[in-house]
Structure formats: structure tokens, C-alpha cells
């Protein structure tokens, strides 16, 4: 009795051109011949984005994709795949790789076509709360493969060959980190998944966990096998209740199916995972602070060495990777480390997930191969800047990162290039700013964040960021003093080099990079007391010019009733009442409001 399948035919223009309609007829004929009509349904999909290999068809729910299919291939596909459940290997595209089945299922090629989904391969496709869905897309096969065919050392070798680097931001080679932990000889070792995603405006890890929690678990279990850990912890923000719930369910399901617990999949390897909640402290993303938090302490970092891989949680060797790093592991195991290392640049392999936000048309979560240019991300995937505004800056790395000007748009996404440009890869925040964004104000925003999140342990970060914030605040309020830029640089460089942990060491980056790339804006604020972007309210005023037609839109929009005027006559702003929110400016359709 043959099982049921869905055959999806690409209905994009290229495939149609390459006669996929003929395929449809051939399939129907062949199905009828085997008396399978009605048992197999036929769907059409939008362009699957593999035009070069068209005509393309997929057999679901396994997501097997066939390329360059001709009508002559159909009998074989039907008799082998549909009847005998044996995919036709010679026609398979990418030898059934795990990655990138995304837009083949989802379509939406404009947004997804240039992306490469490894980490997010299942996000938005499967039901994250159903382990069956994950199993159906080769879930836990990597784990089974590792347990069947590989020694722990082989796994580490594969991870090393893949060239995977930590996706939490610092980019430490994952394989080396694993090796360091594996080398320790102790009775107990721990493994931690860092899901304390804290950058404002970044939600890569949350989406990954909410969309595909088992991938993270599978990565962790493989890691535990490789380094010899007995117990794993997922440290996740308490602010992510849904992600926590899905993880809890996923862990329970995985235990039930024998992927966690004693003797995993019948092997002699045992491992279990516990969830630990954060409680609202950005600094706990730093590994030693995170360890202290799991131990029930204040999340204060400590000096390293000793490194966690030698002495970590409960003073035992501990391997820490973040969500995105773990999610890469099953793909590396199944699709191959060599293949993985073929993606990306010389030193940065694979893909990176970014949360694209700010002044950009398509805000969203994207995953792109390393080496893609910033320009391509902003304009091809992001769709460019809305409202015909001019691009001004791109912020990567959140509060630890920097702001890059237009000159850097052709920078490639990789750890070294972004660092050379004066920013960092970071965990994946990417914020686009247009001409209405004030760089001093943005720097102040990020610094206010880190200053608020400083744990207070070391002097440079605790006291220094406060002083920097004070200086930035006075600049944005028009009270900047001669020498303030130099003071910021002096403090910034001190904090960068003298702070105890990564939070402090990177806190000045948004300020230093904006000074480097947008120094004139700082000078305008200090010397001319002007904010050209109009974002610093104390330095901005609004006036209605004689272009005003008296449409009353601004009067209606004003939240404080500062605008007076009769319909069809010139309106006036009461400067005393005006709070400089800029709503009138945004509302006016006649460019009759001038900002100064």
C-alpha cells in the first residue's frame, strides 16, 4: 500500500517556460496508471528560486527537491519514490541537504531568495510544538549518525573542519572551544546554551527557539557527546515565555522519544538538559556572569583565566555556545563539514542570522551567507530605505557594535571585515538609519543602555560609562563643551581596554565609531548647537512656512495644541507650547514645516 505524498511543482515563470506544465500532465498520467489518482495530491508553488535547475518539483512532506526534471523522469520518480519510498538520487538537488529548503516551501523569493537558511531552515515551516514535524525533516538524524558512526573526537574534528565560529558575537572557533573542554579530565562536565539574548532590537535566538526548538536541543546533545558533558543548561531570558514553553515541551518530547536522558537512542551515552531562567540582566550574556547567574548569584563577571572550558559552572569544565551556534551543528553533521566550510569567506564560514530593523522597508529576520555585502542586505533583501529618504548609517552588533557610514556599504559580512570597518559582527542586531537619525543621539541611546546594564563591578565600566553618558547627554541638550569629543575618546579607549568583561570592553564602540565616522555631527551639536537630523529635541525647532495651505492636518496631529490657525489660512506654532515631537513635520504633506 503506497503512502500518500504531495508533489509540488514549481510554477515560476522559468519553470513554466521550461515546460513544467508538461510535467503535470505526465504526473497525472503516471499516477492514473498506478491507480494512485487522489492518493497523491499535486500542488503548484511560486518560484522556488532554483530557476537554473528548472523545471523543479518537490515531493513533500519530506521536502525532496528534484531539478532538471523531464517528462521522461516521471515514471521513475513515481515508481521509485512514491511507490517504494526511494528518492531518485540522480535528480535530487543538493543531495537533499538540510539547509535552504526554506523558500522552496515558503516562496516569497524577493525576500528569501538571496538568503541561505541553515539555522532558520525550519523556522516558519514546521510546527515547533510537534516533534513529529521535526522528525519528518530529518530531525535527530544527525544525533543518530553521531552516535552510530562517530567517536567524540571525530565530531570535534568535523566541527573544526566546518570552520564554525561562535555566533554570540566574539567569533571564537567553536571546534577549538569544544576541544578545550573535551581535553579536561573530570568526573563532571557541563554544557550551556546561552539564550540570554539581550541586545535591544535583536530577536534571532528567540525566533530560532520558538520556530525550531529541537534543532537547538539536537546541537547540544551532539556537543555533549563530543566533549563528554553529562548535564546541560539552557539559560534563557524570563522575558521569553513562549520560547520557554516551547523549549520545555521540546525537552519533554525529546526525553519521551529517547533523545535525552539515560542511554540516548539505545547507546551508552546519557545526557539531560535543564532550563534556567535569567531575570533581566544584559550582562548575563557574558559567559562568566551567566555561569554565576546559573549558580544563583548576582550576574557579575569574573576575571579570566580560568576560562569556563577549564573551570566553569560549579567549578567544572563547561562548554558555552549560543543558540545560533548550537543550531548549526546538526546541519554540519548531516550536510558535511566540508560543504559547510565552502560557504562564506576565508575565515568566516556558514551563515549569519540578523534581525534587520530600523528605517528599512522589509524589517525582519534574515539569514545570509557570510561574505554578502551590507549593501546587498539593505537593498536586495531589505528593500532599501522607505519614504525616499537617504541612507545614513548601519548599526551592527547592538550596544557592543558600531555605526558604519555609507562608505562601508560594500563591506562583507564576516568577523574580520566588520571589525576592520569599526563595528562588530555581534549577535545579529542590524539597524538601518536614515537622514532623520542623529548619530549622537543614537550613540547616547546605546550607551544609556549599557550604562544601565553595567553590573557595577569594575570601575571603568561602572563609573566611566556614567561619565560618558553625562557628556553625551549634555551634547544632545546643546550644552556640549569644547573638549567633550576628546573626553569621550579618552574615556572610551580606557573603558575598552581596562574593563573586566566584554560588556565594558565593547560599551564605548557605538560612541567611538560614530565619532570616527560622523565626527562633524558631534561638532555641529557642540559648536553650532544644531542637530541636523532633528532628533535631539532640545536642539530642534519647527516653523510653518508660507507653503502652508491651511489643511489643518498639523493642528490635528499636535499632541499639545501648540498649533493655531483657521482652515485654508496660514497656521502658526506657539513655540512656548511646542514640545518638539516633530509630529507636525511628519504629518505635513506640503513640506510647509521647516525644521531648524
Amino acid at each position, binding site marked *: 500500500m503506497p503512502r500518500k505524498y504531495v508533489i509540488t511543482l514549481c510554477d515560476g515563470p522559468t519553470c513554466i517556460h521550461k515546460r513544467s506544465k508538461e510535467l503535470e500532465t505526465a504526473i497525472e498520467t503516471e499516477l492514473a496508471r498506478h491507480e494512485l489518482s487522489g492518493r497523491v495530491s499535486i500542488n503548484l508553488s511560486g518560484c522556488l528560486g532554483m530557476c537554473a535547475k528548472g523545471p523543479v518539483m518537490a515531493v513533500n512532506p519530506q521536502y525532496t527537491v528534484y531539478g532538471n526534471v523531464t517528462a521522461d523522469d516521471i515514471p521513475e520518480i513515481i515508481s521509485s519514490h512514491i511507490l517504494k519510498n526511494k528518492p531518485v538520487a540522480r535528480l535530487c538537488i543538493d543531495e537533499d541537504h538540510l539547509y535552504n529548503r526554506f523558500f522552496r516551501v515558503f516562496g516569497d523569493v524577493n525576500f528569501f531568495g538571496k538568503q541561505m537558511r541553515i539555522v532558520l531552515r525550519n523556522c516558519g515551516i514546521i510546527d515547533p510544538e510537534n516533534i513529529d514535524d521535526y522528525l519528518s525533516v530529518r530531525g535527530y538524524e544527525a544525533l543518530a549518525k553521531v552516535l552510530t558512526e562517530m567517536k567524540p573526537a571525530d565530531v570535534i574534528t568535523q566541527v573544526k573542519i566546518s570552520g564554525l565560529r561562535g555566533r554570540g558575537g566574539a567569533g571564537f572557533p567553536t571546534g577549538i572551544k569544544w576541544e578545550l573542554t573535551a581535553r579536561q579530565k573530570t568526573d563532571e562536565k557541563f554544557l550551556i546554551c546561552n539564550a540570554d539574548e539581550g541586545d535591544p532590537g535583536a530577536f534571532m535566538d528567540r525566533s530560532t527557539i520558538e520556530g525550531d526548538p529541537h534543532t537547538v536541543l539536537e546541537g547540544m546533545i551532539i556537543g555533549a557527546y563530543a566533549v563528554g558533558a553529562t548535564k546541560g543548561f539552557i539559560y534563557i531570558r524570563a522575558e521569553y515565555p513562549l520560547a520557554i514553553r516551547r523549549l520545555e515541551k521540546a525537552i519533554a518530547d525529546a526525553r519521551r522519544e529517547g533523545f535525552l536522558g539515560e542511554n540516548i537512542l539505545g547507546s551508552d551515552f546519557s545526557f539531560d538538559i535543564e532550563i534556567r531562567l535569567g531575570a533581566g540582566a544584559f550582562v548575563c550574556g557574558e559567559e562568566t556572569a551567566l555561569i554565576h547567574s546559573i549558580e544563583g548569584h548576582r550576574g557579575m563577571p569574573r576575571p579570566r583565566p580560568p576560562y569556563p572550558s577549564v573551570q566553569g559552572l560549579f567549578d567544572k569544565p563547561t562548554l558555552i555556545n549560543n543558540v545560533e551556534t548550537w543550531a548549526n551543528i546538526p546541519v554540519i553533521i548531516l550536510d558535511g563539514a566540508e560543504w559547510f566550510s565552502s560557504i562564506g569567506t576565508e575565515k568566516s564560514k556558514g551563515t549569519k542570522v540578523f534581525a534587520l530593523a530600523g528605517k528599512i522597508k522589509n524589517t525582519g529576520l534574515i539569514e545570509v551567507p557570510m561574505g554578502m555585502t551590507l549593501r546587498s542586505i539593505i537593498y536586495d533583501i531589505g528593500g532599501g530605505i522607505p519614504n525616499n529618504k537617504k541612507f545614513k548609517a548601519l548599526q551592527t552588533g547592538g550596544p557592543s557594535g558600531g555605526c558604519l557610514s555609507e562608505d562601508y556599504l560594500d563591506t562583507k559580512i564576516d568577523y574580520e571585515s566588520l571589525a576592520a570597518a569599526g563595528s562588530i559582527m555581534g549577535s545579529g542586531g542590524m539597524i538601518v538609519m536614515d537622514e532623520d537619525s542623529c548619530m549622537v543621539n543614537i550613540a547616547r541611546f546605546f550607551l544609556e543602555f549599557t550604562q544601565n546594564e553595567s553590573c557595577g563591578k569594575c570601575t571603568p565600566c561602572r563609573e566611566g560609562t556614567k561619565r560618558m553618558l553625562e557628556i553625551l547627554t549634555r551634547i544632545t541638550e546643546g550644552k556640549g563643551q569644547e573638549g567633550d569629543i576628546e573626553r569621550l575618546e579618552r574615556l572610551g579607549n580606557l573603558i575598552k581596554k*581596562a574593563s573586566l568583561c566584554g560588556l565594558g570592553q565593547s560599551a564605548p564602540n557605538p560612541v567611538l565609531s560614530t565619532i570616527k565616522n560622523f565626527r562633524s555631527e558631534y561638532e555641529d551639536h557642540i559648536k553650532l548647537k544644531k542637530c541636523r537630523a532633528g532628533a535631539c529635541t532640545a536642539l530642534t525647532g519647527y516653523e510653518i512656512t508660507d507653503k502652508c495651505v491651511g489643511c489643518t492636518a498639523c493642528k490635528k496631529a499636535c499632541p499639545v495644541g501648540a498649533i493655531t490657525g483657521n482652515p485654508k489660512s496660514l497656521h502658526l506654532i506657539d513655540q512656548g507650547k511646542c514640545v518638539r515631537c516633530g509630529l507636525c513635520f511628519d504629518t505635513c504633506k506640503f513640506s510647509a514645516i521647516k525644521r531648524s
Partner: protein
Amino acid sequence: MESKTITITIDGKTYRTQEGLTIMQAADQLGFHIPRLCYHPKLSIEGACRVCIVEVEGAKSYVASCAYPVMDGMKIRTNTQEIRRARRDIVELILDNHPQDCHTCERDSNCELQRLAASMGIRKRHFEGERKKYDKDLTSTSVIRDPNKCILCGRCVRICSEVQKVTALGHAHRGFQTVVMPAYNMPFRDSVCTTCGQCINVCPTAAFVEKVYTQDLFAKLNDPHIVKVAQIAPSVRAAIGEAFGLEPGRAMEREVAAGLRRLGFDYVFDTQFSADLTIMEEASEFLERFQGKGKLPMITSCSSAWMKCVEQFHPDLLENVSTCKSPMSMMGALVRTYFADKIKRDPKEILSVAVMCCTAKKYEASRPELMVNGLPAVDMVVTTREIAWMFKSAGIDLLHIKGEDFDEPLGLSSGAGAIFGATGGVMEAAIRTAYELYTGETLMDIELESLRGLAGIKEGKVTIDGKEIRVAVAHGLGNAATVLDMVRKDPDRFHFVEIMGCPGGCIGGGGQPYAGINSMPLDEECLKKRAEALYGIDRHKTIRRSHENPDVQRLYKDFLGRPLSAKSHQLLHTHYKAKEPRGIIPQELKVR
């Protein structure tokens, strides 16, 4: 484990050093003094102040030398223009959030931060801004907490939890708002603080200081209508010289007695006298218990911080604690009764002042159950630091003053009374007397080496009349907790336990002179020298056993009757009760 010799380069020159040391330790040994602030050799590594940063070739940021281990071939720079400027800026950042009232500060000229700032050459302020503003906590009888002066080095938090295991203090809130405070920001008075004052000792600034009574005392000393009586504790004489610039270890008992008279005291008594008396009572009490009347092991009760500690942290062992008052309170009781009778004055007209090495004694003086006929046994307790300041303020030059004897009838003491101040001393003194009280024979070999020294917990045995008496000595409340756990586990393990609240015993008390320019607070060498001063006093006395003190004998004959008499019980003994809030000693809590 044998450590490997490795080669490092400091400031361009190559040196051999040992693997396993930190950069700071290696540098110290090689004669490079890297500036430091939060580091304390007795406490865990904090790595917080960043004053001790150095440049290490290949490292992308500066490294904290207190925490970073030396490695073979490491190239370290301690003194470049860049690192000097970085350190300078860090110290300035601390100063920018610190009151600028050095001239009116108690620690003026005795402040680690001040010395550090001076050595950095901070002459101009670059980053001034908002400063912290908190209320001082004046509620404690002993310790004043001033968060405005706090620079968050965390030494107090660490000593309170790591050494004392009291954990009365913790970092609360975070970032720029971080404050060291008791739980719930409750008044110090209502917390589990034992008032030991070790936070004062380790504080580099004046964030913790003792509650000062010097002005009150000056005022009272000028009152012609009252009799001014002072007593001084053994350890005061062993350390006060340091406040006058002397090396530790010089005993100055006769100088202090003379100085106190010049200050205006009518009578200067010696707490060592009442220490002898304590031994009479305590040794007798022990022998009673040893013979089946009462709980064993008996635990000493002369340390005030320990008294508060046992009531809050170890209420299950209250019955084990000796009912003897401390020597200070015994002296106070006698001043109000025996002595008042002798001079025929109304006890109300006597000002009873104790000069102590201790901040907890200020608390002890306030305990209502220690009152004598409705009057406090001691009206006022001043610390070694306070009295040293008073001497200086009054122009009394302790270095050149001619020594004088203590006053009768409460001034004569045995050597046993002197060694009370060092850890193990009470036990040693008690054994000297208990032996004779029990056997009727004189113990000849009276220097009990096994009970001396700075080991955290010392155990010993003496055989009295064929019976083995097992004793233990612990100093510091953390070690005390460990010994008490041994007791809980095996109640028969010891018969007699001495506990002193402070590291080193009273010589390391919370009221002792601040560490000097070249020493750290609680420096072991310093403690050893202070102890040696007391053992020296003992050695030079002809009377070395408490029961041989003729004035003590006379006191019993004329007034008390015999040890443990009804009168003794009324005046020299006390009781304890469990108190809230309950103290908690965690099993294995690291301080983060």
C-alpha cells in the same frame, strides 16, 4: 605540587619566577609594586577596581595583575606612559564619585585611596559629574556605614562572608547604583552584623568607621563632679604604638596608663586584672561542667562579636557557652560595686570607660542584661584608634612619656591575663589555672605552643589528673562556625573550646590601628608581632597564673567569697538568648 620555574619579562628585563603565581605576586617578589586597591591577600580575587592593570604583549586589553597568572615567556609592562595614564584615569573615576572632604574625613592621612591618588599624581579633574548621595547608617552601636565614601572594592563584603561567614553585607542593586548594604537595606542595628568591625579594618576609605565617642569623652573628662575610671584591654597596648609610627610588636602598657591619667582619668585599671578574674570563674565553671554539672564542650564567652554571633547564628549551642561575662564587663561590674564601695562614691558618679581593641565591645556595653544595679557596667567604649587620636589631639606624646603603673585595687595582673589578647590565650590561661584548681599541683610547663599561632583552628590535649581534656581554639567567626560544626557532629570531640570573633584574636580586633603605608590590613606578620608583644609581657611577669594574682585573691577574700559564689553569679555571670534575625551560614557559598 612542585611549581615550575619560568621566565618572564617585566619592563624589558628578564626574570625567573614560579609558574602558578599571579603577575602581581611575581612582581611583588621581584620588587615591582603594582598599585592595587580591591586586592587583599586574605580574600578571594575580585579583579574589580582595575587599578592593578598592566600591559601584556599580545593581549588586546589590559590585564588585572592580581588575577592573571604568569606564563612562560610572558612580556609584561607595568610602567608605560599608556598604562600609567590608564591607571590615573581609573583612580580619577573613583575620585569623581567620592566626596571631596578629605580634610574633614576620619581617615584623612590614613586612607588607601588618598595615598593611591597621590601616587598617581592626579592634579586635574577631567570627568566630574553626578555623585552618589546616600544616607549614613548611624544605627549600629559600633559601626557607621557611609555608602558615599564606598568605592565598591568589595573587601568588606568578602571579609564578612569569606572570613567571618556572617554575610551581613552584600552588594545590592547594580551598575552606578550599586551599594554595599545589609539585607533589605535594613538599619545595621537590626541586621545580623556581629559588630566585629573587620569591615572597618579592611575598608580602604571611610565607608566603614567605628561609632566615635571621643568628643563625648573629652567633655566628660572635663566634668569635675564625677570619678573618671578607665580600663584598657591587653591588645590595646600591643598595637597602639603603630598609631604613633612604631613598628608593630612594641608593648606600651605603662605608657598608656600614664597617658590616660594625663587625659584626665582618675583611675586607670587593667582589663588584664579582670581577665585573671574571668579565668578564675571560667576555669571553675569548666571544672564543674567537666565533673558532670552542665553541658560540654564549654565554649568561651569573652568575645563580644562572638556573643552576638552565637545568639543569632548558633542558638542551638547557647547552653554550651560559658556564663562568664567578658573581662571588660566584669571590670565594669566591679567598678560599680567593689571599687565604688572602696572609694565611698555613689556608683552613679563614676564614669566607667573601656579602652578596647574592639568595636563589638561598644555593642556589649549596650547589652541590658549586663547592667549592674541599673547602671551600665561600662559607660563608654573607645577603640585603640580613638584613644590614639585623643592622645595626639591632647598633645600626649606616647613615645616620650614616662610609664606608670596601673591603679589598685584593679590594676595588677598575671601574665595569663595578658595573653588573653591573642588567639589561644584564654585557653592557655584557663588551663594554667584549671590544672591547679583540679589537681592542687602547679602546672610547670605553662607555654602551650600548640595553642599559639595563626592557624585557623588549633586542637590540643592536656592531661589533668590522668584525665584527657581535649580543647580547640578558633579565631574569626568563620573558623568558629567550622569548629561548631565539628561539635555538632561529635559533641564529645572537645571538652573546652575557645572562640574569638576576630582573626588573630583581640589583637586583630576591629578597633586596632589602620594598616600602614607598606602593610595590608590583617597582615599576618603584624598580627604575629602584636601577639609576640603579649607573650613577651607574659614572659616578663613573675606571676603568670591567674589564681596567683594577689589582688584577685584579695577580691575573693574581701568581696566575692569564692569563684561561682552567689555574688560572683550576680556580678560576673550572665545569660544568652536566641535573637532575631537569624543568621545563616551557607554550606558552600562563593562570593561573586
